[in-house]
């Protein structure tokens, strides 16, 4: 008897959701037909990204935020990403430790994922996992990134609303002036606000937000002014303010029509990425299995050929651009 995994996912079966996510992570060929059936049922969930440096309180905030969202009667899917070892490929995924209160709520599905070498703060499969949880009927999907540095901004390409979690003691005012992760927040969460330095951090980030308005102006695409919200997540302080800020941002995106624009851009990027991935995998497979890759590497190493013309040669052999 074969199980209809797509059908089970649509019924909300956690076991089916869990298995399909594994297929996506492992790039198992069983995933594709399933994702084809699920796709028509996606696009309903609201996606919130939670990012920030290691130890700022992303998991704790995710846990508390989930409890508040549940009180509104909405169901929640959580994707919690932690880093894979570049040496062994293994990983310690520890985000569940902070989520024990919601671990048994049938309205919550938590999946820990390792980056498996993917850069940018997420894993390769994360955007597809969003689609699976969406199709399974989760109303809100929270994506918790790995602890990020300054430049890991992939989450903003998946999330409708991106929260950047910050904590005092990690740098002076210059840090809040920089490009990169500081730019992607729709909401700045100043966590651990009961600790020394939190007020100063709040002021610095608020200044940045004011400066952004001054520098970049306010046009249709920049009409949202990011909220700066102090929290002490571990004591459940300020969480309703974060949720209110998320809802305001959602409302803003819907009112201005930017939600659809955002999702259109996301669809474009994801489709291009899938094309890139599939074409590359196909080429790599054929070149490695036929032994031709090694011949090419030899020829390039011996300077008999240069890599630039090799690539052009391969393209002309493999890819035929239709006329018209």
């Amino acid at each position, binding site marked *: 008897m074969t199980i209809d995994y797509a059908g089970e996912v649509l019924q909300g079966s*956690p*076991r089916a*959701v*869990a*298995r399909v*996510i*594994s297929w996506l*992570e*492992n*790039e*198992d*060929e069983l995933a594709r037909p399933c994702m084809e059936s699920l796709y028509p049922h996606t696009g309903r969930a609201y996606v919130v990204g939670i990012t920030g440096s290691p130890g700022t309180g992303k998991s704790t905030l995710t846990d508390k935020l989930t409890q508040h969202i549940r009180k509104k009667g909405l169901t929640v899917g959580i994707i919690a990403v932690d880093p*894979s*070892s570049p040496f*062994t*490929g*293994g*990983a*310690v*995924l*520890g985000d*569940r*430790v902070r989520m*024990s209160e919601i*671990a*048994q709520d049938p309205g919550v*599905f*938590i*999946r*820990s994922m*390792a980056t*498996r070498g993917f850069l940018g703060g997420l894993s390769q499969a994360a955007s597809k996992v969003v689609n699976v949880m969406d199709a399974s009927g989760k109303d809100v999907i929270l994506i918790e990134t790995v602890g990020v540095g300054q430049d890991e901004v992939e989450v903003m390409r998946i999330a409708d609303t991106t929260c950047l979690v910050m904590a005092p003691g990690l740098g002076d005012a210059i840090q809040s002036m920089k490009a990169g992760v500081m730019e992607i927040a729709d909401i700045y969460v100043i966590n651990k606000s009961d600790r020394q330095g939190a007020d100063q951090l709040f002021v610095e980030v608020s200044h940045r937000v004011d400066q952004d308005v001054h520098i970049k102006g306010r046009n249709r695409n920049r009409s949202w002014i990011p909220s700066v919200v102090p929290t002490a997540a571990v004591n459940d302080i300020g969480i309703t303010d974060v949720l209110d800020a998320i809802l305001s941002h959602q409302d803003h995106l819907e009112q201005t029509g930017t939600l659809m624009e955002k999702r259109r851009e996301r669809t474009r990027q994801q489709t291009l990425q899938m094309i890139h991935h599939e074409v590359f995998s196909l080429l790599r497979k054929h070149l490695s299995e036929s032994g031709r890759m090694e011949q090419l590497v030899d020829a390039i190493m011996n300077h008999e050929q240069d890599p630039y013309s090799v690539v052009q040669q391969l393209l002309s052999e493999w890819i035929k651009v239709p006329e018209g």
Partner: protein
Amino acid sequence: MADKKIKIIVAKPGLDGHDRGAKLLSRIFAEAGMEVVYTGLRQTPEMIVEAALQEDADVVGLSSLSGVHSHFFPKVVELLKEKKLDDVLVVGGGIIPLEDIPELKKAGIAEIFGPGTPTPTIVDFITGNVRS
């Protein structure tokens, strides 16, 4: 298809608060290339099984130092079966009297590793007995 990783839940059922061993083993499993979901202290069997279900875990590793193994370990196996997760490998470790081991194995815990077990023995047992 990319490499399939072994996914293991490391959990401490019951109330004992000593997780140095469980944390060390989590690192050893990661070093062996596994993806380890560390769930933390004071887990109920229901929480452990729910985590195994959502994470699509291949293995559940249970640690107990406080004498509650005879109650909690079989309970985890029983709940896994109830959720039709009967192909999940369950192993245990900690302070467990030798005379309790046959009963635990009969209840479906595949192996028990006591203090002093060389860690490669544990890793080899898991890689050799996990579902394919």
